């Protein structure tokens, strides 16, 4: 690109330079087109769609590993008909009759939180009602009481402020199966701005800790620093959307989902 005597680029030099830039860009664009399409699809495929995939994974585990409830002690609906509070908008409302059965649950719309679908074989109905805890209080003392026994049960879900009262009536969870296996699990979540690795710690079948272990996004993960505590408090990957950091929040969400899937499948 030699300078012209007049101090301006000649039209031919300018045209050749622009053509070269377009050629380089075009070659790279074609080479990365497939990957870019995947990125775009991942970005546009927001939680409701991904929820189904997660639900499929969780359904497989649920209906193949969880023992059937005993006759006379039907599982209490794990999803409360009470209005959810703090429930993300992306989660479809799940109406559940007060006497829902296992068969009923198979027909339910997908619900993200595995914690909401824990059955208590052989336990009185009151115990099952204890599993209908709201996400906000899932990590509270009421749930701790449920898990006091040697065979902890994973509680709850659909957020309801009434859960605290239910917890006091919880039956011994002797025969309950934890929803997650104890241990520390890692998962990766991806967005178009990078990837996030998250870790969850499961103790007595419950999420006791969640953290971002690697932040590979181009934006600071401080933007989503409030999300890990939400995973613990809600016992769910369903964290808030973060205005201005929605993709990082989604990447964190996917990372938690992957980690919990491993906790389930261990």
């Amino acid at each position, binding site marked *: *690109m*030699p*300078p012209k005597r007049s*101090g*301006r*680029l000649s039209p031919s030099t*300018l045209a050749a*330079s*622009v053509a*070269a*830039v377009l050629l*380089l*860009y075009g*070659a*790279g*664009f074609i*080479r*990365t*087109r*497939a*990957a*870019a399409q*995947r*990125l*775009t699809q991942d970005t546009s495929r927001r939680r409701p769609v991904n929820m189904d995939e997660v639900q499929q994974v969780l359904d497989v585990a649920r209906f193949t590993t969880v023992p059937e409830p005993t006759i006379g002690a039907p599982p209490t609906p794990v999803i409360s008909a009470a209005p959810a509070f703090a429930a993300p908008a992306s989660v479809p409302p799940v109406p559940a009759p007060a006497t829902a059965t296992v068969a009923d649950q198979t027909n339910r719309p997908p619900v993200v939180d595995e914690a909401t679908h824990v059955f208590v074989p052989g336990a009185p109905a009151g115990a099952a009602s204890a599993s209908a805890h709201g996400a906000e209080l899932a990590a509270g003392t009421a749930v701790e009481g449920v898990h006091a026994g040697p065979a902890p049960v994973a509680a709850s879900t659909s957020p309801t402020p009434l859960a605290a009262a239910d917890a006091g009536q919880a039956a011994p969870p002797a025969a309950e199966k934890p929803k997650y296996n104890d241990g520390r699990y890692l998962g990766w979540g991806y967005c*178009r*701005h*990078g990837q996030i690795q998250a870790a969850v710690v499961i103790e007595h079948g419950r999420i006791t800790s969640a953290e971002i272990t690697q932040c*590979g*996004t*181009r*934006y*600071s993960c*401080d*933007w989503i620093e409030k999300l890990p505590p939400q995973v613990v408090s809600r016992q769910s990957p369903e964290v808030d959307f973060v*205005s*201005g*950091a929605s993709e990082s929040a989604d990447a964190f969400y996917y990372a938690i989902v992957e980690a919990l899937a491993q906790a389930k499948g261990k």
Partner: protein
Amino acid sequence: MTRVTRMRHAAERFFRTPKGILILLLGVLLVLAAVGEGVLQLWRPLVATVAAAAVVDTPILRWRKRRWEFPSGAVLTGLLVGMVLSPHEPWYVGAVVSAAAVALKYVARTRSANVFNPAALALVAAYYVFKAGHSWWGALPDMSLLVSIPALVATGVFISHRVNKLPLVLAFLGVFYALFTAAAFVGDPARVAEAFITPDVQAALFFAFFILTDPPTSPTRYRDQLICGALVAAVSFATFELLGVVYYLLAGVLAGNVQEAWRRAHHARGGRPVAA
């Protein structure tokens, strides 16, 4: 000649200068961005960044030049900071960043000009100090490519040609996409796919046309422009690959600023003419 007439003539002269033209062109992009993002979302952070920069720069200019002067450089800095910084940031973050940008212009400078592009330096600092996000909304990433690319290219080529920095822009874009394309062929294409799609494409164009070409901090001679453009592209690419941070473009221009300041200082010591 009345006072109003004198002011009108002064305004006409100002908007024929590169700074005046750039303010007008950024105004065009702002109007388009407001259509895409919403005026309510944008006006507060933008007013904060521009006003804060002007408030800081006006008394400094008065002290340095012994007369009142319109802080056109500060307005530009405020606009650039506001158009890069995420509109989701609190308004006071933009104000502080913008004011710091103007202040840094007077702190880090050689005899002839400031060393760093003030907006770029403050935005990088804001990433660490405020964890501030860079959305580059002024590059129209939320608009259709049929609108955003022609708007950026038309306004960008106009101002780049006006300040005679087209070689710098083309050198940057050429080396930038050559490196990313090479990386796509040599390694995993997914690692660099972002560079070829929205919003990075718009950000790269906005950066090349409106930030890289800042006259006080960029070279004048074509040969120097080619070297600087290639260096900025290489550092931007390396920052993207090694750090993966959102300010990878701005890191490149800061490296180019240092190289340009060193070149000017080196030539000044050698007694050769320095193009400022």
